[in-house]
Structure formats: structure tokens, C-alpha cells
């Protein structure tokens, strides 16, 4: 990114931070968390300890960061190197990202930017101008992406509440600021478990690694009564609902399943898992030392804010997470995809000079699809 774009983004971000400190709050157990931040075109500064809102606001004003992060973990000494921090526990966090949902719409709103010549095209294999294969993909997620991510959040909440006894009050959902949602779980029985145990939880939630026996299918000594009932709790009940469809079809479908082979059942199970398992990013959940984007801060991949979703059902990130101002700015936009922000449509632009509101300019510049004119 060039100096003109960086100056513009820093000015816009600074204005937002100055006017919206009310949205940026330190999390609970503040002084036990590790904070970190990045500036544009620069590396990560982490291992920072912060006491309260005032100190946090000072960090924003002094550094004008592109991104700010905070650990889900609690440490005795958050400001020391990793192996001296003395890890005490960590909130459980789930990342649901539209890019992991294999949605058919994705192809339509994804472009490739060539790392060699900066050409923007829809060709995902090699640059249509210089044939380089070093391409960076940028997606402008659509309503379908957000709706599909919301569905995953709802599936996740159901498993957390019904199976893992997490109370609804202890689940908080945030829009990540780009393509999905971060789900935080506080005060659960899982606060103090390590990475391996969290990996088991991640596999459970995404219904990964299930074997046919768990759902009643055996290699030998087959038994009709071993198949789950429609009203059963946990994955067994969800499996029954998905595979049998209705109580009346249960018997007929069990006969069919038994007639097919054990390995064919494993395939059925893999399909079911793909359909009803929650599509979380396991790497995020199992990492107990990660720092996460701070709620209320701007995501420099989009210029949108990571924000708490009070009503997930109604939540529209392209209205509710876009906080930058409407001041007009001239940019050269090379954005072949139309997008909507604050209920206004923009693009497509074909390497053209346009005058647009700051919030839209920031969105495109963050996506590397525009430059200051």
C-alpha cells in the first residue's frame, strides 16, 4: 500500500476511534490479557498489558493502528514472552467464516489481484495480464455469505447450549469485521482446558471423526434397535432427524441402511457431517495463545468494525458495522464487483476515477481495489 492510501486510512480510522470510544471497551479481566496491534505496512507489536479503557484509548490515539488484538487467554504476566506468561485459562472462541462454507456465490464475488503487476481479474489461476501465479484473492461477501454464516452461528449455539450446557447469557456473537462471526463463550466448564482438549470440542461441534457405530451401524451383529431415535438428544437425535426425515420413515430407512454396506454407511455419515456439522475453523478454537481482533476496532481487511450482534437475525453488517464518515473522496477504483454499504450501491468500476463517500473508499482501498486519485 502506498503512502497516500495509508495516510487516508489512518486519518479515517483515527476519526472513527476518536468519535466512537464508547464502542471500544476493555474485556473482563483486562490486566490479565495480552494486547497487540499492527500499523499499516508494518509488523505486529504484541505482549502488551493494559489496565483499563483509558490506557486502551491512549494506545489507539498514539499509534493509529490498522488492527488491534486482545487475547482470549488470561495470564499472570501478559507482557512477558510467551513461555513466561503463565497461562491461566482462556475463553472458548469459535470463528465462522464465509470463506470456509464452500458457497457457490463465492466465485461470483471474488477477484484475484496479481502480486507482480497489480492487475485485478476474475481469473483465479493465473494473472490474465502477466501470467504470474502469485495471486491474492479478495472477496466482497454478499448477503448470502452473511446469511449462511448466521445459520452456522445458530447451529453452534444449539450444540453449545443443549449438549455442552453453556448458558445463553455466556455466549456472545460478534461480526468479525470482514466475512463472518466470532462466537465467545465465557464462564464455561472449558475455560481451563488446553489445546488438545479444545481440539476434541472442535471435532465434536463440527461432527468430525464420527464412526458408524456411534449412530447404530455395526460391522457384525447388526441390530435395528441400536439406531438413534428421532427424539434423542445430542448428535444422535440430529442425525436421526437428518437421515430419517420423519418418525414414520425411520423403520424403512434403517432397513435400507442395514442392506447397504458398512462402508457405504460411513459415506452417508460423512455427507451428514458435511450438512449438519457446524463449520467452524478448528485452528482458531484450538489455539490457546492467539490474540483476536478487539471488539469495537476496525478490521483493516474491510474498514468495517468488529461489532457485537445484539439481534443476529436482523443484523446487517453492511449497515451496522460501517461507521466511517460520508465525506466525499476521489479514488481510482478497479473493482469489477458491485457492493452495497449503508444501503447504497457502489460499482462495478473499471479502473475509473470516481468521487465516493469515505466509508466506501476505505472499503475498496482495504480490499486493494482502489487508490487515492
Amino acid at each position, binding site marked *: 500500500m502506498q503512502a497516500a492510501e495509508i495516510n487516508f486510512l489512518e486519518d479515517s480510522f483515527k476519526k472513527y476511534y476518536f468519535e466512537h470510544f464508547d464502542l471500544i471497551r476493555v474485556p473482563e479481566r483486562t490486566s490479565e490479557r495480552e494486547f497487540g496491534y499492527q500499523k499499516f505496512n508494518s509488523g505486529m507489536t504484541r505482549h502488551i498489558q493494559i489496565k483499563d479503557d483509558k490506557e486502551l484509548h491512549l494506545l489507539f490515539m498514539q499509534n493509529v493502528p490498522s488492527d488491534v488484538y486482545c487475547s482470549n487467554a488470561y495470564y499472570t504476566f501478559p507482557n512477558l514472552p510467551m513461555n513466561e506468561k503463565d497461562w491461566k485459562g482462556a475463553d472458548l472462541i469459535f470463528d465462522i467464516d464465509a470463506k470456509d462454507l464452500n458457497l457457490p456465490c463465492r466465485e461470483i464475488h471474488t477477484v484475484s489481484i496479481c502480486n507482480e503487476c497489480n492487475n485485478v481479474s476474475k481469473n483465479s489461476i493465473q494473472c490474465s495480464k502477466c501470467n504470474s501465479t502469485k495471486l491474492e484473492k479478495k472477496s466482497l461477501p454478499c448477503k448470502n455469505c452473511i446469511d449462511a454464516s448466521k445459520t452456522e452461528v445458530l447451529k453452534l449455539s444449539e450444540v453449545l447450549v443443549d449438549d455442552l450446557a453453556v448458558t445463553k447469557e455466556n455466549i456472545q456473537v460478534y461480526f468479525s469485521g470482514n466475512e463472518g462471526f466470532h462466537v465467545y463463550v465465557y464462564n464455561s*466448564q472449558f475455560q481451563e482446558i488446553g489445546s488438545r482438549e479444545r481440539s476434541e470440542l472442535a471435532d465434536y461441534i463440527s461432527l468430525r471423526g464420527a464412526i458408524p457405530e456411534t449412530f447404530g451401524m455395526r460391522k457384525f451383529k447388526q441390530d435395528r434397535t441400536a439406531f438413534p431415535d428421532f427424539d434423542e438428544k445430542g448428535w444422535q437425535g440430529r442425525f436421526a432427524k437428518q437421515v430419517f426425515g420423519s418418525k414414520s420413515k425411520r423403520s424403512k430407512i434403517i432397513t435400507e441402511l442395514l442392506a447397504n454396506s458398512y462402508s457405504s454407511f460411513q459415506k452417508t455419515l460423512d455427507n451428514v457431517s458435511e450438512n449438519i456439522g457446524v463449520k467452524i475453523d478448528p485452528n482458531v478454537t484450538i489455539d490457546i495463545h492467539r490474540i483476536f481482533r478487539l471488539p469495537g476496532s476496525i478490521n483493516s481487511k474491510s474498514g468495517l468494525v468488529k461489532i457485537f450482534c445484539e439481534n443476529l437475525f436482523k443484523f446487517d453488517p453492511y449497515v451496522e458495522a460501517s461507521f466511517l464518515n460520508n465525506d466525499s473522496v476521489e479514488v481510482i477504483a478497479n473493482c469489477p464487483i458491485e457492493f452495497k454499504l449503508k444501503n447504497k450501491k457502489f460499482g462495478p468500476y473499471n479502473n475509473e476515477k470516481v468521487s465516493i463517500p469515505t466509508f466506501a473508499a476505505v472499503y475498496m482501498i482495504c480490499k486493494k481495489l482502489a487508490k487515492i486519485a
Partner: protein
Amino acid sequence: MLELGEDEKAKYPFMADAGKYLKEQGFTLEQFGTDPDLIPIVEKAYTRIHAACEMNKDYESEIIQNQVSNTGSLPREVFSFLLSIVLLKLTGIPTLARRFALSESMRAEGFLTKDLKNISSDENELPIKIIEDLFSIKIKKQGDFFIIPVVDYIKHSVHFHEREWKLVNRHVENGFVYLKADKMVRLFRIELGKYINSKISSGKKPSMIPGFEDIVERLISYSKKFQSSFVTTGEYPPCIKHAIEVLEKGENLPHSGRFMLATFLLSKEQSVEQIAPLFKNAPDYNERVTLYQLNHLAGTSGSGTQYSCPSCEKLNTQNLCFATSECDNIINPLQFGKKRK
């Protein structure tokens, strides 16, 4: 300490206070080396260790139908266990101690399963209290099942490699995992083994007891059987081959894949300079960053921690496992192609 009945002392001798028990019975350790009536119990202890290490059942237990068979059998059962511990301490060979501990934990597992099956729903019944006493975990009976909090289940189940033990293959409801008695007890086998092992390794090694020399010598010479060496094929496991292929094609290998590849090769004694060029084709390659990260993983910069290659299970979760039959149930890629000679 939990108050145990006669049968429980015989079934779970590791829970008894050894010194107190000997004193109560009016014996000293030295007597077992010299008293002709007691020497057979030392021989019984040897057989108990031998049977444990062979993982067979030639040790004749005097517990029949979950109860001690007669009045003399209780002290013989407890003494032979306590003397086994003494012999293993005197021998000082960890392999024997580990095998003994595992075998004894499996033996106790059988008793505990039967005892658990026989309880009503009273939370204060002894088998439930034994589990609580040993592992600080409260389990409850619910219908035909025993239930354990999910968090306690996964803390133990992560040590198992069979897929059956994955949380996803258990019935989970309202924060609890539902298990039958045998599975519930099996869950604690490793910890039980560790507990028994800790009884052997804790405290200092006693000085030789006159009359025990011969049996200790026999155990030392028997232990040589368990020394083994390995040969390796030098071939890379499929997960590593896949990661290298991805990089060679110039495709993006996720951070977790790069971590796996780097830690694997570092463990195979390759240097940071040898490994770095592998990442040259990555779309976001930056030589300075790559070297910094490799040095960090190798422990030559940063905190000095040397990172190890993730387990197969973790790689599976991360979609990085491409297991073939050649993997042969290994649990870490570093074991690939390693065979006992």
C-alpha cells in the same frame, strides 16, 4: 484416606497405606527375606511382576468372584503387591515398573467395573468414592449409564487413540458424557497406571533387604528382554509429502501446514537454511519472515522453546492428515517408517 473393606484392600491394594498395613499385621520387610513361611510370598510377588510384564494371566490371584477366597488370601494378595513395589524399587528399571503399573491398573479396572455395575444409585457407594478419591472426579449413575462432566471426560479421553473415544462418538447431553460402567472405568486406566507407577517411583530407593538379592538379580536379567532398537526407512509420511507438493505447485499451504512441515524437518535434523528454500514458491514468500519463523520454531531465537511436530490427531483436525495404510496406526508423523528390529 478412604476407609476400605477387606475385599477392597485385596482388589485395590495400591490404595492401602503400605507401611500402616504391614505394621497392623505385625511384620517387618526384613522378615520376608528370611522367614521360610513368608519367602513364598516374595516368590508370589516375583510371579506377579513377571505376569504383569508378559501381559498374561499366569499370576494366580486369590480373588474369586470379586471377593477374597479365604482369610489367608487377603494378606497374601496385599503383601504380594507391596513386595512387588519393593522389588521394583530395588531393581530400579523403569520399563518393568511401567509394565507392572499398567497391568495392575487393568486388573483393578476389572474389579472396579464389576463393583460399579453392582451399585444402586447411591452416590456414596464405594466404587464412586474410589474414583472421586483417586481422580477428584464426581461421576453419577443415571439409568443404565454413568455420567461424567464433558470437561473431565475429554481431559482423559485425549490420551486414547481409538476413534471410539473421541467425544463425537459418545452420547453427550446437557454437559455430561454418558458411559457404561466398563468404559467409565477404562477411561481412567492410564491415570490409574500413573498412580501405581508413582507409588513405585516416589520415595527413595531402599537398601537391599537380605534374602531379596537373588530375586532382584533375576528381575534385572529378565528386563533385558525389553531392550529394543529401531530401524527407519527414511521415507516421508503422506502428510509431509502432501505439504511439500502443495508448496512445489506454488499453492497456499496454511499456517498450520507450514508449522507441521517445518517442525517435522527440524526434528529430522535438517537446518533452518536447508528448510527455508522449500517455502520459496509460497504466494506470500518473504525470506526474512521465513527465516525468522523457522529460527523461532527451532528455538534458536525468541523464547528458546523448540517446537515439536503436531500429533496425527491434531493434523487430522486441521485437515492436514492424508493417512495411508503405511502409516500403520502411528500417532505422530515422526514415527512414520520406524519399525522395531
